[in-house]
């Protein structure tokens, strides 16, 4: 496989001096779905904007399909479809006209058959003569996708496509993404939901503070991230872990009132049922159970510690 997007040492310092990108290196393979995962303010939108020509990079280089995004911007941009984070559409325009406009802007003549296919795929065909302001929020987002697809891009950027949309639309969006992948389109989507990255990505890049912390196959990352802890509150405190529970990797909480069991959600079952059986066999009474999952923030903190000092 070859890299269709190659970013090297990319920096962006905004006017006012804030450095939003601190030397980003990233290679995205043709045909893959890459999730750019990071908290708010991490630099996801800035990175995408720099690749698409909305923001001028202040250093480094980026290529899309071999075209430098600054020097050969026409070649690069012709390959790119962008669905921005904010819904920005002209309220009084008709759906079909705004899609035609996008196609023209990218240098293509009319192709009504293609536009029909895209609008049908996004369940917008019935609304083609509706004005934008008459549409629901979810439909507006689909119009943005239609506009991004109408010049048949090879690379599609989706900036938080499912932020603030309902569950149903999120599923639809994922279906659309899967369909596009099947057509060979490379897709980069940003999100701050681990679950979203998990659901659709092939690889995940974690970005924070303007730096890429890691790029990894989704499966490997999820194994690392998918750790949960079960906290078992006992009716009677214990001084030490009972012998009968030695085969479990348990920690004793402060005061001996709790047992903490760390397990992976990725394995063949969690073992919790058998653990609970063993607990009762050992004569320990349970007052309460609680599970916690490491949040994205915890994971970032962990990653920064790992990578840094």
């Amino acid at each position, binding site marked *: 496989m070859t890299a269709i997007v190659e970013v090297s040492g990319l920096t962006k310092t905004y006017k006012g001096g804030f450095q939003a990108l601190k030397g980003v290196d990233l290679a995205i393979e043709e045909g893959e779905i890459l999730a750019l995962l990071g908290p708010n303010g991490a630099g996801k939108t800035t990175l995408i904007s720099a690749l698409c020509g909305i923001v001028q990079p202040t250093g480094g280089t980026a290529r899309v399909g071999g075209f430098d995004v600054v020097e050969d911007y026409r070649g690069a*941009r012709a390959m790119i479809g962008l669905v921005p984070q904010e819904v*920005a*559409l002209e309220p009084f325009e008709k759906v079909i006209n705004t899609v035609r*406009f996008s196609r023209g802007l990218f*240098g293509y003549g009319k192709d009504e058959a293609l536009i029909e296919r895209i609008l049908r795929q996004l369940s917008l065909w019935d609304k083609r003569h509706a004005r934008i302001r008459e549409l629901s929020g979810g439909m507006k987002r689909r119009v943005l996708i239609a506009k991004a697809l109408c010049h048949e891009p090879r690379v599609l950027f989706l900036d938080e496509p499912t932020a603030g949309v309902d569950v149903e639309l999120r599923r639809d969006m994922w279906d659309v993404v899967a369909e596009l992948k099947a057509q060979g389109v490379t897709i980069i989507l940003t999100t701050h939901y681990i679950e979203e990255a998990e659901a659709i990505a092939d690889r995940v890049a974690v970005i924070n503070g303007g730096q890429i912390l890691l790029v990894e196959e989704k499966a490997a990352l999820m194994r690392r991230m998918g750790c949960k802890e079960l906290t078992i509150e006992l009716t009677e405190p214990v001084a030490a872990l009972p012998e009968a529970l030695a085969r479990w990797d348990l920690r004793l909480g402060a005061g001996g009132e709790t047992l903490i069991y760390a397990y992976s959600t990725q394995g063949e079952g969690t073992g919790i049922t058998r653990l609970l059986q063993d607990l009762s066999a050992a004569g320990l009474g349970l007052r309460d159970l609680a599970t916690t999952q490491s949040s994205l923030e915890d994971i970032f903190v962990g990653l920064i510690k790992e990578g840094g000092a």
Partner: protein
Amino acid sequence: MNWHAIWAIYVYEMKRFFRTLMESLLSPVISTTLYFVVFGAAIGSRISEVEGVSYGAFIVPGLIMLSVMTQGISNASFGIYFPKFIGTIFELLSAPVNFLEVVIGYVGAAATKALMIGVVILLTAWFFVDLRIAHPGAMLAFLILTCVSFSLFGFIIGIWAENFQQLQLIPLLVITPLVFLGGAFYSISMLPPAWQTVTLFNPVVYLVSGFRWAFFGMADVPVAASLAAIAIFTGLCLLAVYAIFRTGYRIRS
């Protein structure tokens, strides 16, 4: 050149115009009629002729210029400001188009609208006064050049403006006074000598004078000076547009 993109922008902008066609054309027709009633009838009864032309006919070129300039500016400034305001500008920035193509699309549409309004005013004026056009070719050339250059100017204002107040500031503070003091309703020779000199620093005087020459063959300033004035103004606007293009001023962060 990405001709499809230019055409897409042009058509899109013209559609906006046609969506509000009645308002777009009705208001200049009404205001022209009012100008005729107020200036033509009221003042015209006192000033019967200016250099051999009836006062009613004399003010027609100035009236057309006035509308064309203000329309060119407001159409083009709004045309590019609006996408900045609602955020749809991202699409222009991320499309394989260069700034020149964007300018041609927006300015071309704004100039076309201004031209159409100019023509409608001319036709309206024909109802009220006898008009003859001595140099039709020159008349059209002046008209189109003015439409284009003031649309360019409007485009620059639209890029520069960061809010609606700023969008209206320049037309209100600069253009309207220049146009009213630009000899649309009188001949410069009717002013006291000191004011005649001051007036010569007003670029609009040259445009109105040249345009009026195309109608009646008479001018306040030499036609060559008029041509030079509009060429310089267009040149300055193009220079500013080029500077914006080079620096990404107020469009690309």
